[in-house]
């Protein structure tokens, strides 16, 4: 069918996530790919005809690995994209654990038998953890500290550790892990977009860490690049530039509410327990300490460079033109 001799077959878990959907759309347009398997519990919203085939697959089921292995063998999948991860923290912690940690185990069990040529995993820079001892730019080899009591972060961390072990045990498979900085944009919905959509935001009194985001289109492009290329290892996918947290709030026009740490933690516990906010108490550490990653390796080896600066990303998330607001002043020389 395809004019290319080596047309590839790609399987994507989490096809209904933002990144999964964007990847499907991009692969659909690319003649180098013969077939795309969209795996999720419900069909992706925008299913163009032809290349993409939806297969219902629930990673929380105990025997899903066998099912997946048969699928991979049947379609001769050569590239596996594992993106079935939650974008919001959830109160259903057991289910989240089954999906992210155990689900990754199922995926890896299936891949261990078939050994696809390439395995791409979607992860986040949150796995580095916000820590007072973090350097300003975390490189890929930095220790993954996770978070002491955040199940949202730790499930992803455990999944990533499994994938790293898989990479060691299966040298024939090109394993590529993408650690995305918090993704912002006009269409994506995740913990950060929900947090910044509220009119008020807590500020840890006397603390103002630098923050980093990546635009949703840049993130989708990075995932596409990762599927295309032969690069292996972990890559930080980050946007251009950093801004202090309070400046982010000012650009967004949110009202900062400075609170002493002690009060903020208790309040956050209450609000989380009563399900009034979408971010757990452990998230407050990311408002206290740095968690900024260095994207130089992705630029060097993956050929991905972000297109939009952090300010443009924030304004695009907000839906205002960059000229709007009295903010476009004093460009740094950097």
């Amino acid at each position, binding site marked *: 069918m395809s004019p290319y001799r080596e047309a590839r077959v790609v399987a994507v878990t989490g096809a209904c996530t933002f990144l999964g959907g964007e990847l499907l759309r991009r692969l659909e347009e690319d003649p180098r790919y013969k077939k795309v398997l969209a795996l999720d519990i419900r069909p992706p*919203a*925008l299913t163009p005809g032809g290349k993409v085939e939806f297969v219902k697959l629930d990673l929380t089921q105990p025997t899903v690995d066998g099912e997946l292995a048969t699928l991979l063998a049947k379609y001769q999948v050569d590239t596996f994209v594992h993106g079935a991860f939650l974008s919001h923290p959830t109160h259903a912690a057991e289910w989240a654990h089954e999906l992210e940690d155990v689900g990754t185990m199922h995926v890896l069990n299936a891949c261990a038998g078939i050994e696809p040529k390439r395995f791409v995993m979607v992860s986040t820079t949150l796995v580095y953890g916000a820590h*007072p*001892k973090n*350097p*300003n*730019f975390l*490189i890929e080899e930095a220790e993954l500290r996770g978070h002491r009591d955040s199940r949202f972060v730790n499930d992803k961390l455990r999944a990533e550790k499994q994938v790293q072990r898989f990479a060691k045990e299966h040298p024939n498979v090109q394993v590529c892990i993408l650690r995305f900085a918090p993704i912002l944009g*006009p*269409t994506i*919905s995740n913990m950060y*977009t*929900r947090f910044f*959509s*509220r*009119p008020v935001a807590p500020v840890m*009194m*006397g*603390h*103002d860490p*630098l923050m980093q985001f990546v635009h949703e289109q840049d993130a989708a492009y990075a995932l596409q690049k990762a599927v295309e290329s032969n690069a292996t290892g972990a890559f930080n996918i980050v946007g251009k*530039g*950093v*801004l*202090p947290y*309070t*400046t982010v*709030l*000012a*650009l*967004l*026009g949110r*009202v900062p509410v400075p609170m002493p740490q002690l009060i903020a933690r208790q309040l956050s516990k209450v609000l989380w327990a009563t399900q009034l906010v979408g971010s757990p108490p452990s998230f407050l550490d990311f408002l206290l*300490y*740095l968690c900024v990653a260095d994207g130089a390796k992705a630029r060097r080896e993956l050929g991905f460079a972000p297109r939009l*600066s952090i*300010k443009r990303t924030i304004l695009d*998330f*907000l*839906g205002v033109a960059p000229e*709007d*607001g*009295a*903010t*476009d*002043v*004093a*460009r*740094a*020389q*950097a």
Partner: protein
Amino acid sequence: MTDDPPNSDDDDWYGEADPRVPDAPSWPDRDLGFLGDDVYLAEQAAAIADDDDHTRFDEAEMRELERRLEQQRTPVFPIDLRKRLPLEGVWRRWRALAMWGRSDVVDDFGRDPRATARWEWLFEFLYSRWFRVEASGLEHIPAKGRALLVANHAGTLPYDSAMVMHAVRRDHPARRDVRPLVEDTVFHLPFLGPVMNRIGGVRADPENAERLLLKDELVAVFPEGEKGMGKLWKDRYRLQRFGRGGFVKLALRTGAPIIPVAVVGAEEAAPMLGKVTWFAKNIGIPWIPVTPTFPWLGPAGLLPLPSKWFVRFGAPIDLGNAGPAAAEDRLFVNRIADQIRNQIQSMIEDLLGKRRSPVLSAFLG
């Protein structure tokens, strides 16, 4: 939309065309010389090549795609605050107000040019009026390229790093910005930490320092660190151990010359009579200093006393011929570190010998 009815009121309003006024030239006849011939020709060629039907098809497809995207878009919050807000005008004004005094672009390490400019007057006051700093040896600092300033450390708050920064920015012909490395206890101190970061301070971390030096910045380190700041009055101007020689390794790895800096006067600005470690750990600081003013006058006691300061920059020490491999040679690193420590100590003693009085030196000469 652009099709007006043939008998619109406009004709009545404007009356007949004035025969004396020549018609405005229509588009391609207009003088487009300012665009340059090639641009104009290319535009024309493109316009000719572009099939009318083709463009219309593209537009329709685009609209369809946009419609589908809009459908896919789901509201994040009951009221989509990203798109419309109650009291839009108030909100816009609030955004403008909130951005006052800060810039929307900071450098990679968090230095905010507007915030720096905003605090400039305070540093200038401290530098020229309060401490009456006399800086010498500024010619040893290169006009461009990397260098590592190594200085002694004293005082309960890092006034000395601020003065070293300001001396170079004020009196050096190239007006370079010094990036001081700030130890963790100060960097994570509420309020002071973020301010230090905005005006150029960076958390003291070997990775940060290496990155800064590789960007050809001027980096100031205070290898005594916490021990230097916690020196008691009786130990004044007696240099403490220089860490583990990390700054020497840094200079060897990046090939940056080391410039020794002696700061005299910081000890008298906040003479530490004693320190209380009890309860200090609970509020996240290593000790509570006791100075002639501090706990007694409340927060006002943290203001420095008006001592007379001297800052001297020594001749650069180039370790370039040792090579990056020497960074692994611990004995060599330690020897160089001690050598630089002794040099700074003798510079301090030299300055102390010249100074007549810790406070009135400016008047006594």
